[in-house]
């Protein structure tokens, strides 16, 4: 039987530790996300107030009371960008979501602060949301495959996607 040299073992450990250490942090600056979304021509932000008529649905989607009374968005030619935050396990995950004509165009994890569950930042996970719409019961029209070990982070992104779709639909109805 071959013995694994000690140096290889140290190298593997170092790689694992560095990958976990790098997992937390800023994947994309929110400004950069907006610039990318609107091709460098970022519109002025608007705000939607979580008034009493939409508050119960927002609360149902998030599973808790919304943490703020107003949420900011950036809108240009039917495209609405949201930068939303939701706690996965202990800390908020900042996510950029772009909605175009009632469908999700892009989901991007911008800042991840949790110690685990960072796999949600990968394209193989976020691409599942592309073209998703909201059903009348405020659920996504498709099932999203989870990632083992990242259940709470997956749940947080699912909630934020539903919230972005709901708020975008509300904005469209209001205008």
């Amino acid at each position: 039987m071959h013995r694994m040299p000690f140096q290889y073992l140290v190298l593997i450990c170092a790689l694992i530790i560095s990958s976990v250490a790098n997992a937390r942090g800023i994947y994309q600056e929110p400004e950069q996300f907006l610039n990318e979304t609107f091709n460098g021509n970022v519109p002025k932000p608007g705000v939607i107030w979580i008034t009493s008529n939409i508050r119960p649905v927002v609360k149902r989607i998030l599973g808790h009371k919304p943490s703020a009374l107003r949420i900011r968005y950036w809108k240009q030619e039917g495209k609405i960008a949201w930068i939303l935050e939701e706690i996965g396990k202990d800390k908020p995950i900042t996510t950029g979501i772009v909605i175009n004509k009632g469908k999700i165009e892009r989901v991007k994890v911008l800042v991840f602060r949790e110690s685990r569950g960072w796999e949600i930042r990968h394209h193989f996970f976020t691409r599942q949301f592309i073209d998703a719409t909201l059903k009348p019961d405020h659920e996504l029209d498709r099932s999203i495959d989870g990632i083992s070990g990242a259940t709470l982070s997956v749940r947080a992104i699912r909630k934020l996607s539903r919230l972005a779709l709901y708020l975008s639909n509300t904005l469209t109805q209001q205008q």
Partner: protein
Amino acid sequence: MTHKRSHRKFRSLYIWHRYIGIAAALFVLILSITGIMLNHTGALKLDSSYVESDWLLDWYGIKAPENIKRYAINEHAVTQIGEQLYWNNKAVSGEYPALSGLLTFPRFSAIAVQGEIILITNQGEIIERLSGVQGVPSGLKRIGIQDNGTIVIESAHGYYLTDQDFLDWKESEHISNTVWSVESPLTATQLKQAVALFRNNELPMERVMLDLHSGRLLGSWGPVIMDIAAIMLVFLSVSGLTLWIRQVMRRRQRLLKKHHHTNTQENT
């Protein structure tokens, strides 16, 4: 002879059962009451109600941090104790870096902390937390207001202006007529109130119940005492069962004897 020895043994077991029962009664009461309360934490709101008793807070060693800051304008005040903010004596959810200013408007106020501005209603509900994501320039040092209502912040890279919607920021050098928010030093009474405010929001009832249940409230010896109480309860169960079985067997033997005696009499 054997019968006498056995009787003495059971008599001694009965005495032990009685005294250990009396000694364990207090622990049974504590364990049962705290157990029932812990089973209904949500209904009894044990996780959201806090201990205000000074001696219990002292016992747990709960002290308020020394860095206490306060900004006050008219009837509104924001106090920072450690990383916790209090808006008019009501805790603001979340943890915050160093407090650096306060501006009040008729329907809301703006609390500036390092790198963030928190818009809050007069009732203490957060309207929005503004950080770099919402365009707040980095390295926020202080906040002020101009005669025309324009809000000014001094950041690490210069001065920035915004209106009362806090939606758009513009860099500017025209800050001459700005009134900057200044810290309001705490009086001795306010300091005492702030310390009490912090301490009275730190120790949930659930924690005390859990510690009482496990014995940890009494320090490192607590769990040992509770272990002894548990052993006592085990002893009580075994001794109680033994004494009961013995009593049942003796009653049965007495009945059999009586039955045998009646049969013998009938036969003669």
